[in-house]
């Protein structure tokens, strides 16, 4: 019997590399909350690294990562130099942070946080994994501050899967930071603070606002904001909803409301809500809790990690965001058709999602067609990760950003339970789609190379059955084992 004399050369051991650099504090996200944390850290004499993924590469924006850009960015976003300058100029505090000694890296995303814990002891220390346009690397930290903000909540309706349907956070990014919004006339979906603020921002930036559509009977947000919107002559379409976005090759041209009204716009801005960006916390196996008043799932207590700004939860104004978005999901679901797309990347329709049907490139024999979410629910509460692997909803290049939340809402409705009764589909690193060549460790250690095996490195495992316990067994083992360390 093969023995390794107490060591396994193919186990992880100490093969995972030490970080390239270490900081007292790493801050992810250079919005106001991240900048404040970085400045405070520097003020205490800490070594601080502040990373921010802006400007987002054009290819990522095209995939609606990390926000729902809806293809409405101008060609200006294709110029990396111009974008870097614009982002830098849009945030005066960046310069202050640099002057205070903070190391600032723009165009740098944090795509994973790794730490030892249940199921993992092989890391030399806790690390944050970073990537810019040229390479990926890891850094160590004593203190990690996540200021990753909030992303757009998307809920589909007929025609939403075309250019010109975007999110409020993406619009804010394009208008206020990138100066690169390609639309001219917008319709805003929702009327809570986010929607109202979006309307006022758009108006200030010279974008024509055709109105706000609200499923409930009155504007939902702050009364003074709603008044400011009214004073700007922007109409509310109350107890209404977008029934269909109609367009051409350049995307949206007009929208038909449930009430029958048709409005000519080039962009529909989903401003129903924002979702705190908990990707990194969730992917690292951190705790999260559901808090409807703070925008849904927010980080729980996680040792060594502080969350600030919107990613820690939206400001609690007493408004139940989850109830509000569930009401929208019910309404837009009712207006949807069986062939309305839910997952844009994988082109999963509403009917196929609820029928747990496989993608169109596979056969659907009779037993398959007879299956549905109902038959799965009989076996236990639906789990989005199970639905994902059957329907492929959420499996695409946007990493589920466009459909994760609406799928969770659809499953909760189908299971007749509240939103939290169905778990959220898990986030996994890399939490940004990153090219193989960028992610790759091109400078891996000799120890990693030498210890690499395709599977567990157990030579007896691959000996042909007929040769087990024969003289040929040793020959195969030797030959196979020599091939290890490729």
């Amino acid at each position, binding site marked *: 019997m093969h023995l390794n004399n*107490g060591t396994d050369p193919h186990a992880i051991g100490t093969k995972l590399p030490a970080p390239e650099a270490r900081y007292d504090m790493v801050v992810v996200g250079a919005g106001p909350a991240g900048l404040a944390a970085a400045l405070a850290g520097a003020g205490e004499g800490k070594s601080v690294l502040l990373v921010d993924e802006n400007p987002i590469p054009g290819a990522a924006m095209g995939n609606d990562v990390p926000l729902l850009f809806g293809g409405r960015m101008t060609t200006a976003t294709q110029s990396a130099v111009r974008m870097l300058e614009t982002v830098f100029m849009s945030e005066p505090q960046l310069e202050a942070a640099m002057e205070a000694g903070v190391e600032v890296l723009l165009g740098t995303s944090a795509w994973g946080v790794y730490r030892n814990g249940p*199921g993992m002891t092989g890391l030399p220390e806790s690390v944050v*994994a970073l990537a810019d346009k040229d390479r990926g690397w890891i850094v160590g930290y004593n203190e990690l501050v996540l200021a990753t903000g909030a992303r757009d909540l998307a809920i589909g309706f007929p025609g939403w899967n075309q250019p010109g349907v975007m999110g409020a956070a993406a619009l804010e990014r394009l208008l206020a930071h990138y100066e690169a919004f390609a639309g001219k006339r917008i319709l805003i979906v929702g009327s809570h603070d986010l929607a109202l603020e979006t309307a006022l921002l758009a108006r200030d930036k010279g974008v024509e606002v055709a109105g706000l559509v609200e499923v409930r009977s009155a504007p939902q947000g702050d009364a003074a904001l709603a008044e400011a919107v009214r004073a700007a002559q922007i109409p509310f379409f109350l107890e209404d909803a977008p029934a269909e976005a109609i367009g051409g090759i350049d995307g949206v041209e007009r929208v038909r409301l449930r009430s029958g009204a048709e409005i000519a716009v080039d962009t529909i801005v989903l401003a129903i809500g924002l979702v705190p960006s908990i990707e990194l916390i969730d992917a690292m196996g951190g705790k999260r809790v559901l808090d409807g008043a703070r925008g849904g799932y927010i980080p729980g207590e996680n040792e060594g990690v502080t969350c600030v700004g919107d990613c820690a939860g939206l400001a609690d104004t007493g408004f139940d965001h989850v109830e509000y978005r569930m009401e929208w999901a019910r309404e837009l679901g009712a207006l949807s058709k069986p062939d309305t797309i839910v997952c844009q990347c994988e082109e999963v329709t509403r009917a196929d999602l609820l029928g747990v049907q496989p993608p169109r490139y596979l*056969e659907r024999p009779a037993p398959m067609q007879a299956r549905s979410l109902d038959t799965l629910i009989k076996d*236990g509460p639906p789990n989005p990760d199970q639905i994902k692997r059957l329907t492929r909803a959420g499996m695409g290049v946007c990493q589920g950003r466009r459909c994760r939340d609406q799928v969770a809402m659809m499953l909760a409705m189908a299971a007749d339970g509240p939103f939290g009764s169905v778990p959220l589909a898990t986030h996994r690193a890399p939490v940004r789609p990153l090219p193989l060549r960028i992610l790759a460790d091109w400078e*891996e250690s000799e120890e990693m190379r030498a210890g690499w095996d395709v599977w567990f490195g*157990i030579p007896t495992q691959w000996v042909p*059955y007929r040769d087990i316990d024969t003289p040929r067994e040793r020959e195969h083992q030797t030959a196979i084992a020599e091939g290890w360390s490729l």
Partner: protein
Amino acid sequence: MTYVGMPTPKETPQETMAKIAGTAAGMKVVIVGGGVSGLSAGWWLARSGAQVTVLDKGIVGWEASGRNGGGASHYQSPLFEEEQRMWPHMDELLGYPTEHQQERLVIAVSPKQLNQYHYLAKMNNDMGYRVDLLDGDQVRSMVPLAGDNCLGGMHYRFGGHANPQRSVQAYAWALQDLGGRIYQHNPVTGFETEGGKVVAVHATSGRHECDAVVVAAGPQIQGLMAKLGVVVPLAAARAEMIVTEPAPMMPIGGVDGNGLYGRQTLRGNLAYGGGPHEWLETFEAGPPARPSSPLTRNLARRVAELFPKAAHLNVIRSWAGIVENTPDGRPIIDRMKDPENVTVITMSGVGFGLSPASGHAVRDLVVDGQCSFTDIKKLSLSRFDGIGADWREQRGWQAPQAA
């Protein structure tokens, strides 16, 4: 629907199904563990007329069965020819898609790899399984994503791959269609024995009477069998994979090499794993977590080397699975002497591809007491009789102390 490179089977799968129909009529079988091995066993038993109940601690196929590379080319196994006979018919027999595809290519980007692949090619050809050797240009004509760094490779005229997640669900659904019952979120809490047999299995869903039990609970087999006084030496470890956004479809999706296992899915994604594992403690309730590590970067590098023309593609996920291994890395497929109606199956980390055959073997052990189609005696549990309590330490397979 047979392979060029394999001996022609004596019987069609449909004939086998007709032959076993009714052979286990009235038999109540409880399967502990809804992974691919347990579900396939349950499906074969249900095809034989047994009343099958599957108990799982969580969701079917949630562990290694649904997280692996989907390979189906394990020529070292005595189950291999049966696996190869069955796979091309599984969609039809199950009634659900598995995404099974035939044939594989293994390509080398270093001289050492090429030497190893040549050795494996010869080993296979000696066994009567046809493998063609390829030079770099031949590989590049068959694998559009391969690059100038490719030195050659081999073409298995057998084997293949399937979608693990879809296949596991296909087994589960097919089993239900035959009257089988699947209880998810139902960990087994104990066994009730009487006269040298297990007469009932207790789970959170209640008491399940049985004539026979199949324990197919992956890493949790050890703890479960300990309740019956049977020692099953197993060690669990974490293995990792990554997947890219879709690439243009290659004519043969089952391409790997360069220290990787994996495939191009029918959607086009490149899904690959390999590299160092981490040994873990085992918990009765299952793994507390399945974390990925920065090994993602080493995997990305190797995929980029394997497919230089895909190096620009985005990686969109990484994941990890918890896999159990026996001390020699070979399966245990065995019916116990005491309690004599208990059959254990662990495939020691190589279970998905062989599942159409492993279920048949388990069906045979449960119903007939012996495997009808191949010799599996070398996979008996008794080969580990008297193994020292420190067998993991001897191999360096112990879980490191948590930091």
